[in-house]
C-alpha cells in the first residue's frame, strides 16, 4: 500500500462516518421531506456510473501488465459482462470472468 497507515485509518473513519450519515439522513433528521425529482433521478444512476468509470481503465490498461492492454484480461472482462447480462446473477458472472481469465492465462502462457 503506497499510502501511510495513518492515511488508511483516516479514510476508514471518514468513510465510515460519512456512509453512516448518508444512511441516517432522511430516516434520522430530514424526515418525510420528499427529494426533488431531479435529485432522485441522478441518485438512481450513481452505481451504474461510478463503478464502470472506476473499472474501465483497469480493464483497458491493467496494472499487472504495466499498463499494456492484455487479451486475457479483456476476454475475462467481456465474459463477465456477457454472463451478467445473460444470467442476472452476480456470482455466475464472477465465475465466468474468473474462469475465462484462468483459461486465457493458461492458454496464452
Amino acid at each position, binding site marked *: 500500500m503506497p499510502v501511510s497507515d495513518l492515511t488508511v485509518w*483516516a*479514510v476508514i473513519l471518514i468513510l465510515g462516518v460519512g456512509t453512516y450519515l448518508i444512511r441516517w439522513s432522511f*430516516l434520522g433528521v430530514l424526515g418525510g421531506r420528499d427529494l426533488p425529482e431531479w435529485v432522485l433521478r441522478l441518485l438512481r444512476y450513481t452505481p451504474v456510473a461510478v*463503478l464502470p468509470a472506476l473499472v474501465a481503465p483497469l480493464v*483497458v490498461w491493467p496494472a499487472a501488465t504495466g499498463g499494456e492492454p492484455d487479451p486475457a484480461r479483456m476476454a475475462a472482462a467481456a465474459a*463477465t*459482462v456477457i454472463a451478467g447480462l445473460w444470467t442476472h446473477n452476480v456470482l455466475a458472472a464472477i465465475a465466468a470472468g474468473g474462469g475465462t*481469465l484462468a483459461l486465457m492465462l493458461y492458454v496464452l502462457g
Partner: protein
Amino acid sequence: MSPTPEPRPDPAQETADPITARALARTPRQAFWHGMWQSLPFLIVIVPFALLFGVVASEAGLDLAQVMGFSVLVLAGASQFTAVQLMSDNAPAIIVILSSLAVNLRMAMYSASLVPWLGNAAGRHKAWIAYVLIDQSYALSIQHYERHPRLSMPQRLAYFAGCVTPLCIPWMIATGVGAVIGNAMPEGIALDFALPITFLAMIAPMLRTPAHLAACFTAILSALLLAGLPSGLGLLIAAPLGMIAGAVVETRTTPKEI
C-alpha cells in the same frame, strides 16, 4: 409515500389474506426469525464477496485491523473495494473518500423511502437501522412493509433486525477470514483482476433500461478519455457525467403525463 396507518384488527381482511394474517399475528420474536429466514439466501452472495474483499485488501497491503476496520465501520462492499483500489493507485485521500462516498449515495434513497415505515421509531432504533442499512436489508424490508402495511412498529423493527443479523455478522467474519487467507496466498495468481471482475459482475445485471446503459457507457467513455488525469480525478468527472446522461435519457424515454 403515504402515511402509515396504525394497525387495527380487521377480521374481514385478515381472513381474506392468510399471508398478511400470519404476518400480523407474529410476535416480535417470531418476526425476527422470519426476517432471518428470508435473508439467508443472500449469504450465497455476501460470504464470497466478503472473502474476496479480505483477500484483495490484504494483497493491497492493508493489515488485518484495517481490513476489519473497513468491514465493521463502513459496512458497504462496493465502496470498500473502491477505496482500496484508489489507495493502491496512490490517489489522494480526498479523492478516495469522495469517490467511495459517491458509491454509497444511493443509500440516501433507501433512507428516504423507509421514512413512511420507520420514521416514527425511537431515535435509538433509527440509529442502529442506519448502521445496518445495506442493499439486501433495504430490499427485503421495504417489500415486507409494503406487502403488510398494518404491521406494528415492534414487528417492523424485529423483522429488520432479523434480516440484518445473518448478513452483517457473516460479512465481518468472512472479511477477516479473507484477510488471513490473502496473506497466505501464493504469488502469481492473477488477483489483480478480481476487483474489475467483481465490479463488472455487479454492474451488468443493473443495466436494465436505456438510461442505465447510457449512464454506464458515458461513464466508461469519459473515464477512458480522462485516464491521463492524476489518479482518481478522472473518476470524479466521469461518474457525474454518466449520472447526468442517465437522468437525461430517463427524462426523454419516460412518457410525459398529460
